[in-house]
């Protein structure tokens, strides 16, 4: 297996891990990205903040998860720089399609491995 193939597989596993963690928190209205990063750390799968954001965007675009960005916070103001960039994803929630992917009830996604 080439280095590139290994890296692609690794990234797909990361996305799978994210879905798994969100599944564990499925009964909650949403999970903070900080909690998600912490849970990944505990799995021994540390992901850089940029990578995590990248994976979350992909999963949201495939309708596996729903995301809320910093700008979606009630009362958010652009001049409050310390809160984080407006586009930064702050919360996520597993959607039924993500659950179906995890359960194998929808076509496999080569970008997401469990």
């Amino acid at each position, binding site marked *: 297996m080439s280095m590139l193939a290994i890296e692609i597989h690794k990234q797909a596993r990361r996305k799978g891990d994210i879905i798994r963690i969100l599944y564990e928190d499925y009964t*909650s*209205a*949403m*999970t*903070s990205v*900080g*909690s998600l990063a*912490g*849970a990944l750390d505990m799995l021994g799968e540390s992901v850089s903040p940029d990578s995590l954001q990248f994976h979350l965007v992909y999963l949201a675009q495939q309708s596996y998860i729903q995301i*809320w960005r910093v700008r979606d*916070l*009630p*009362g*958010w*103001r652009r001049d*409050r*720089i*310390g*809160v984080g960039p407006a586009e930064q994803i*702050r*919360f996520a929630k597993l959607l039924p399609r993500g659950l179906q992917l995890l359960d194998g009830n929808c076509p496999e996604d080569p970008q997401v491995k469990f």
Partner: protein
Amino acid sequence: MPRERKTDQLSSAARQAMLACFAQHLPASMIAAKIKAETGETVADRTVGRRKSEWEAEQQRRQANREQMEDLVAAARGSDLKASEMIEALAREALMRDPDGFGSLNPIDVQRTSLQAEKVRLAREKLELQKRIVDLDEAKFSRMKQREEQAIDATRALERKAASGQAISPDDLRKIREVYGLNT
């Protein structure tokens, strides 16, 4: 492991003096001079200037986060369910980072927050119930209107029949009963 900075070598008295000066927004050169005067320790103006910038950025970040949280709480108190859910998620994140964190919280405040979330949930359920009642009333009204139009049509048909000298048959009576929903 964090890189050691020049100011880490200062005594705790010098560091305290430096932080007090930051809070007073004194210029870096004045802070360095004050540290020298109070403790006899020497630190470069540029070093103090860098620490001052970092301290101010951190203060600004804390202030922004505090204000954002106040707005979130205000929205939650104003029955914004999404805000309540975000606060809940952030509380879980804080607990994950500091599992003993709840030990230092005032239990009354914690209970108040959860009661507030419960209140918001109940308000949402009440609204949904009210919406269902309105939907049912609308459906009922629409059915009544439809029945009234059918009754008018049936009456007109009977009037036309009577005017032409025809007798009202059992089938006509059945139709009238049907309009009023009396057929079993």
